[in-house]
């Protein structure tokens, strides 16, 4: 399974997270990124939030104003079979950064503005399997750039491989 980093996004807290060209990633997350409510966002097991460009485009085709970064993801990825990106899998981001998917992200009301009817539950894995953002921990820090490859770490298999 291989994809590409479409966009990298940061904010001092809240959404939307805004695009940057490259980022330094540590166990704490992406340099320059922060959270409004650190008790429910951030931390080692929620260091990065990832979401699928194709899923964003699907939501847009349904009339929703979502865009890369508006749902608070740090890394907008393209080309991955998103319903196969599940907790436990490890991915290389670019040539340096190794991450492990830890959990699906629980959507909160700050996502309302991404949906024309405010129904942010569309991002819920429980309500809409395969449509959720995911959290990841950083196993190996480094630098990542827009356009770099994302690849499933060798030897691992996705759910339907």
């Amino acid at each position: 399974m291989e994809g590409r980093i479409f966009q990298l996004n940061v904010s001092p807290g809240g959404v939307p997270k805004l695009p940057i060209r490259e980022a330094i990633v540590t166990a704490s997350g992406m340099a320059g990124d922060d959270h409004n409510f650190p008790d429910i966002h951030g931390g080692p097991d929620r260091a990065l939030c990832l979401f699928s460009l194709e899923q964003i485009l699907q939501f847009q085709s349904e009339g929703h104003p979502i865009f890369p970064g508006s749902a608070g993801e740090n890394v907008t990825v393209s080309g991955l079979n998103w319903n196969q990106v599940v907790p436990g899998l490890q991915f290389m981001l670019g040539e340096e950064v190794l991450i492990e998917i830890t959990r699906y992200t629980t959507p909160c009301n700050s996502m309302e503005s991404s949906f024309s009817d405010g129904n942010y539950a569309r991002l819920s894995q429980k309500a809409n399997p395969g449509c959720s953002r995911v959290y990841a921990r950083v196993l190996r820090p480094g630098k990542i750039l827009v356009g770099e490859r994302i690849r499933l770490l060798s030897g691992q298999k996705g759910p339907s491989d």
Partner: protein
Amino acid sequence: MGQWDTLVRWSPDSRTLIYINHQAGIDNLWAQPVVGGPAKQITNFKEGRIFSFDWLRNGDLVASRGDQNSDVVLINDLAR
């Protein structure tokens, strides 16, 4: 030149390089055939920057553009 001007992508048929051309504060995508000849402008945005662009598996070209915020614009007739 800004940091966003450095993105370059091959077309899916590897015959063309797509790049961001930044003029007067406005970004557009241009295509340069590798066999030579003039580059061709493939978007005609009147404002804003292009933050990213790439091809989807179905051949659609997608660009993320805007000012402070971004917005994905789907360009789906380029590779047809």
